[in-house]
């Protein structure tokens, strides 16, 4: 390393900073600089590829972890108290011993953090050391730098974001699987940067790659290359993202544009933390505890002044070595702090750790629930936010999207209207009826364009100059194949099998035989179905195992959206088979068996503003340029060239379809003249090479071409997910308001709402986007919310994603309720606005899932997630927290406090301090955690059978509950202290001999109190409860036998042994425990006289399943 002046270093650092922050980065190949010093490297400013996700370093673990832990104020409180104990005038215990509890808590937490971090370190190291080829040399992932050439072979994971320059396939097309990145398993097409010669040699790569700053948008990338003078643009379709797998090519060579700042890394934001409602309540209760503590300490401090009233100095009062005593005010002041140290356990030290443990277990149980597992996609329920599980039990309002949430987003062609004539496809309906209750055969169409979702607009046009004919939205998840593998979506024969309408079939065969093929709208319609899409046809060579089992015609369709696949299958049913699709051509086999090869001139991909997509092809027979456009009906109707009669008829049919809950798409055709095409394509090319406003320019060019269309028309539909009506009925019975917010037309929305039993009564509110915009204005909000509150159901249609989140926020703010938003696609705003966001791992995009707190595979899973897991999580945690408060107030804090009245408020404890610590850390710490993890108050069957129980479960943790627990604790502590006090009154009992029964009574009362609270005893419960009692006696006996002078001046030697030989000890323990628990009689009386619904449910739970179901029916009617 040569010496460099500090100035040069600073200059270099600043230059690096500038280079990193610039909006555009210019990158060149590293190869020419291979042997030069680091400071000469052109790409040295950009970080390398090694990843580090660990939070701590080995040497700094302890300080960093402590810093982290002291963000929690409870820890500061306890450390502060431990330090206070080192001040001689106020200390209550031996200072070293007082450190033990907080040290145990801190080290347990540190151990947990350290273990997690070590696991991260291991996985980092594994990833960083994964081998890869950096320009023909075998290296490791961490060696990859920006500007390197990396070669990836088939099925290998890509180490960094690569600009695809060369692949083995002469077409220049390969596919990537992004499952690691976003969970979507469909293949996405990637193309080499156009304009590069086929014979690619990295050494001769002398272009400069100019790309944008790293960002986390997985579906957006722009850059251009400057080989010489001409710019060549490239978009996301040429970028291989880190973490993806390369498919359908032997190898691919790419130029590293982002190493550490890859899109996948930037997307990796880690787990989120929200604060649950219960935790907020908990914190207020902790504040009450602090107030209580201060009150008790103040009482102690004031009372300690009684000594001043004595005429002389008693021999038990120990002066300072100077022979003086403190002034009354000073001794009172000291006493206050001594009391705080003494009674510190009133703020439960282990509560926070216990809550964390319980939440970990709740997440474990949710993700391991086999009922929430979907075999189709092999996915479990996921918890993305780790600490709001109990909020699932508090939901009062649900806001649901429709597409992909209530509906399956699996589609089959259902009906069509061609040239104003309707073809109802009655055969399909008949089959559907026969097939009930599965109704698999129902024809379903989904029309995502209807919902103007923001996610889509980001995707924009990323088509390339020559032929990037596919939009790689990547938000849609679908797997199309003809095989019968049921685990692959859209592959079930029932879904792909469309029975053609006889009339229509006749018509087609007639026209085909008549030979007027080019003109016929019927043929055009089916050609449009087959051509106007981005479906990829893969054959047996496709290296995807799952779909290798192909049908006889050896075709396998990979569609990015389900509707496209459905339409291709529909065309196939009528004999128009999509045979092959390359970037430049589409091959369609006609019913006659003839193959037509259309040259694809351009693809105008879907975007949200246009709500349509088009394909421009050259007809092989007529050589005309034909533009096929597909889109939402209202997006198409306004573009029709000359208004003509068919349009009115078709619109009528479309309206009918909408009323039936069908969704609609329109197809159009346009012949583009040569001159128009030539002038348009010039503009198009310049738009594609632009780096600024590229998307708008591309969109403009698309809009320019999509005018004066001729209508072909079709009509379509959507299907509900399995068990949606049941789920909605159950959720509403549980007292949850369900709102549907959708971008659909009012007719469709209302229809769907009826279908999913959302609307049964008259009192419904349907509101559309425009009206909603007004209703949400600040002066009308209150009235809107008031109105909505009175309606059983609210359906908002034609709303934008932003409005959805506004609705959620308004309801949340005005009504002060817990809200939950469900979405299956990409309504990130709405999901994040709600208290709890749930994503449906659906057929469409994963954005909602990524932004959600919980993700499930079907809407029906909400029922168990909320009614069972929500109820359990909340009940368990609430009961555990209440118990913790009770336990800490009852045991020790109050007992110690009462004892102060009999030891002159001097801060004496009547038990050895080690036993005091053991009491909290060993004997009574595990049972409440077990209670929080495993208690089942009512069985899952009951909770699902009687959704009303959900509502009762919500009131589990009220502030009155807290005060009842505190009162109970006070009562119990009085009993546990004063019964032994009276029994030993005026006797020769010594300090610890008096304290031992108190300790024992306290233990028994605490554990028996818990035993009464435990609703279901499994062997684990027995083990832990019996174990705790056993441990208490074993440890205490061992400690009292072993410790003669080990902990001076405290001296518990042989105390428990003597007590255990004394019958009075047992008699005192028994009566105190019984009297302490006597108030439970009121529970018993209430349970018998006026049982709560939960109590009744528990009674029913004990019956056998059959009579229980009978009872549930009777009860609910």
């Amino acid at each position, binding site marked *: 390393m040569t010496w460099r002046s500090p100035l040069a270093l600073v200059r270099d650092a600043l230059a690096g900073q500038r280079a990193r922050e610039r909006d555009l980065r210019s990158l060149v190949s590293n190869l020419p600089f291979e042997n030069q010093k680091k400071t000469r490297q052109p790409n040295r400013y950009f970080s390398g590829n090694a990843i580090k996700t660990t939070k701590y370093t080995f040497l700094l673990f302890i300080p960093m972890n402590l810093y982290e832990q002291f963000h929690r104020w409870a820890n500061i409180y306890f450390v502060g108290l431990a330090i206070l104990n080192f001040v001689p005038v106020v200390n209550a215990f031996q200072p070293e011993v007082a450190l033990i509890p907080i040290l145990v808590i801190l080290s347990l937490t540190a151990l947990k953090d350290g273990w997690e971090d070590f696991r991260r370190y291991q996985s980092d190291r594994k990833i960083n050391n994964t081998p890869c080829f950096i320009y023909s040399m075998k290296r490791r992932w961490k060696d990859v730098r920006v500007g390197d050439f990396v070669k990836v072979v088939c099925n290998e994971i890509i180490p960094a974001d690569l600009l695809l320059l060369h692949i083995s396939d002469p077409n220049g097309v390969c596919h990537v699987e992004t499952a690691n990145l976003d969970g979507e398993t469909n293949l996405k097409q990637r193309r080499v940067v156009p304009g590069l010669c086929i014979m690619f040699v990295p050494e001769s790569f002398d272009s400069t790659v100019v790309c944008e700053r790293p960002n986390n948008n997985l579906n957006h990338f722009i850059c251009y290359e400057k080989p010489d003078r001409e710019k060549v643009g490239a978009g996301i379709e040429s970028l291989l993202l880190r973490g993806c797998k390369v498919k359908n090519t032997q190898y691919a060579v790419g130029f590293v544009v982002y190493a550490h700042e890859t899109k996948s890394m930037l997307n990796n934001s880690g787990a989120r933390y929200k604060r649950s409602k219960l935790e907020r309540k908990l914190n207020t209760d902790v504040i009450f505890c602090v107030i209580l503590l201060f009150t008790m300490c103040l009482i102690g401090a004031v009372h300690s002044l009684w000594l001043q009233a004595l005429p002389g100095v008693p021999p038990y009062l*120990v002066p300072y070595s100077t022979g003086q005593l403190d002034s009354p005010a000073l001794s009172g002041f000291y006493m206050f702090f001594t009391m705080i140290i003494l009674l510190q356990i009133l703020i439960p030290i282990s509560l926070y750790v216990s809550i964390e443990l319980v939440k970990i277990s709740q997440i474990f149980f949710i993700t*391991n629930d086999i009922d929430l597992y979907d075999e189709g996609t092999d996915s479990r329920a996921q918890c993305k936010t780790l600490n709001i599980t109990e909020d699932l039990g508090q939901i009062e309002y649900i806001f649901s999207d429709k597409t992909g949430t209530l509906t399956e987003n699996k589609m089959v062609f259902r009906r069509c209207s061609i040239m104003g004539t309707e073809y109802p496809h009655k055969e399909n309906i008949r089959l559907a009826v026969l097939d009930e209750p599965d109704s698999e055969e129902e024809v379903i169409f989904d029309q995502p364009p209807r919902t103007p979702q923001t996610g889509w607009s980001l995707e924009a046009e990323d088509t390339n100059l020559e032929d990037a004919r596919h939009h790689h939205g990547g938000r849609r998840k679908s797997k199309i194949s003809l095989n019968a593998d049921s685990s692959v979506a859209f592959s079930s024969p029932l879904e792909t099998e469309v029975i053609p309408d006889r009339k229509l079939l006749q018509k087609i065969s007639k026209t085909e035989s008549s030979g007027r093929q080019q003109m016929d709208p019927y043929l055009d319609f089916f050609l449009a179905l087959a051509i106007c899409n981005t479906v990829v046809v893969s054959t047996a060579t496709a290296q995807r195992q799952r779909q290798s089992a192909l049908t006889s015609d050896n075709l396998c369709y990979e569609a990015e959206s389900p509707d496209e696949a459905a339409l291709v299958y529909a065309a196939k049913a009528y004999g128009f088979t999509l045979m092959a699709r390359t970037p430049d051509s589409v091959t369609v086999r006609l019913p006659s068996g003839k193959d037509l090869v259309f040259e694809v001139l351009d693809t105008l991909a879907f975007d949200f503003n246009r709500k349509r997509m088009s394909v421009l092809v050259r007809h092989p027979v007529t050589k005309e340029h034909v533009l096929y456009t597909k889109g939402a009906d209202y997006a198409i109707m306004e573009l029709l060239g000359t208004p003509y009669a068919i349009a009115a008829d078709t619109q009528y049919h479309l309206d009918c379809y909408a009323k039936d809950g069908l969704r609609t798409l329109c197809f159009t055709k346009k012949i583009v003249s040569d001159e128009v095409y030539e002038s348009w394509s010039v503009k198009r090319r310049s738009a594609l090479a632009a780096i600024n406003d590229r998307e708008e320019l591309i969109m403009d060019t698309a809009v320019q071409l999509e005018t004066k269309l001729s209508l072909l028309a079709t009509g379509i539909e959507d299907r509900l997910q399995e068990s949606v009506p049941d789920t909605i009925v159950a959720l509403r019975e549980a007292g949850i308001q369900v709102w549907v917010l959708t971008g659909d037309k009012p007719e469709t929305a209302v229809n769907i709402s009826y279908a999913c039993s959302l609307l049964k009564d008259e009192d419904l509110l349907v509101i559309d986007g425009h009206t909603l915009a007004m209703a949400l204005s600040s002066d009308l909000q209150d009235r809107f919310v008031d109105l909505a509150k009175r309606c059983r159901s609210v359906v908002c249609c034609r709303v934008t994603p932003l409005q959805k989140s506004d609705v959620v926020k308004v309801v949340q703010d005005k009504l002060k309720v817990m809200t939950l938003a469900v979405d299956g696609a990409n309504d990130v705003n709405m999901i994040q606005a709600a208290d709890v966001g749930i994503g449906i791992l659906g057929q469409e995009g994963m954005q909602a899932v990524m932004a959600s707190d919980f993700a499930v595979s079907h809407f029906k899973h909400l029922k168990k997630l909320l009614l069972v897991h929500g109820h359990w999580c909340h009940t368990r945690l609430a009961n555990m927290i209440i118990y913790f408060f009770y336990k800490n107030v009852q045991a020790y804090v109050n007992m110690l406090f009462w004892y102060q009245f009999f030891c*002159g408020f001097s801060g004496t404890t009547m038990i050895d301090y080690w036993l005091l610590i053991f009491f909290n850390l060993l004997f009574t710490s595990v049972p409440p955690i077990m209670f929080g993890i495993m208690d089942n108050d009512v069985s899952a069957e009951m909770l699902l059978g009687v959704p009303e129980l959900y509502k009762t479960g919500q009131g589990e943790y009220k502030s009155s509950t807290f005060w009842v627990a505190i009162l109970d604790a006070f009562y119990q502590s009085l009993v546990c202290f004063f019964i032994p006090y009276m*029994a030993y*009154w005026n006797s020769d009992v010594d300090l610890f001999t008096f304290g031992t029964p108190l300790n024992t009574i306290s233990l028994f009362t605490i554990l028996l109190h818990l035993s009464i609270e435990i609703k279901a005893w499994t062997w684990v419960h027995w083990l832990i409860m019996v174990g705790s009692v056993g441990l208490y006696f074993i440890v205490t006996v061992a400690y009292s036998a072993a410790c003669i002078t080990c902990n*001076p*001046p405290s001296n518990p030697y*042989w105390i428990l042994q003597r007590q255990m030989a004394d019958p009075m000890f047992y008699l*005192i323990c028994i009566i105190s425990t019984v009297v302490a628990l006597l108030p439970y009689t009121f529970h018993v009386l209430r*349970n018998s006289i006026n049982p709560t619904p939960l109590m009744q449910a528990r009674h029913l739970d004990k019956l056998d399943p059959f009579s229980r179901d009978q009872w549930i029916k009777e009860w609910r009617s």
Partner: protein
Amino acid sequence: MVKQKQETANQPDNTAFTQQRLPAWQPIISAGIVIPGFLIIGLAFIGIGVALFVTSQSIQVLEMDYTGVDKTSPCNRCTDPNVKSCLCQMDFSIDTLFKGPVFFYYGLSNYYQNFRKYGVSIDYNQLFGDLSYFTSPSEKCSPYQYDNNNNPIVPCGAMANSMFSDTFKLFQIVNGTNKEVPLDGKGIAWWTDSNIKYRNPSVTPLQMAFNNTVKPLLWANPAYQLDPADANNNGFINQDFLVWMRRAALPNFRKLYRRITSGDYTQGLPAGNYTLQIAYNYPVLSFGGRKTVVFSNVSWMGGKNDFLGIAYLVIGSMCIIMSIVMLIVYAKFRFSEEE
């Protein structure tokens, strides 16, 4: 087959634990179950209560305050701090035989032996016979660690310093003459205290160990001369010292002084007149304390205490009443299968 496995790689384990279906016992505490429980507890408690009460009633206690607050009290003259080595006498009579063995306690009230700093002011290592702590007692003993001449105090600390110093002699008046009742001072402390926790240094004679140390300020004699009558009852294992060093839990307490077990008094104290001779040394009036002597015989439940017996009887009866209430409730409001 491999394919199939891959497809369900994420499938959760279908075990009773992960699915939260562990077999469980689900008790429901309602009237029907509680009635027999209450009945059993009630009956058992009444039984125990009766036994306790009867036992407690059979215990005889004789308690006399000898503080001398009252002007007419025989010990009144000893309350003057200027009077040194004051002796006073208390006369009393017993109507019936006071059954033996009779335990002789002294009692102090309003005396906080459980004061925190008082309890800390002790050096257990010194009392364990460790000679190194003779020369330098623990800091905890301060200000009773060294005397004004910087000599170490053994035994150090406030607790030892404040040891109770009154002594008693009991006489039965037989035909006008005083007949001394033999008092047994052996075994009044815990066995573990005199044999394990407290030890004299293994130096003979014991006095040698105490060279260069001073006795606690309030003590009349050094530790090795606590019992002139019995050489084995000196030093830290002196029974009276051990009894004192066991801190009382409550501010009103008794401590065992002697037992009456031998001579003519094996069966107890016969009816008759007695006189108690008190060497009054220990001042308590300055802080509002009281001193008593207590004669009591003991049973399996210790000294006389009616509270526990009454408590058992009351709670037992309450349980019985509860079970009757429950029975009514059960008959009226049962939520059960047949309905």
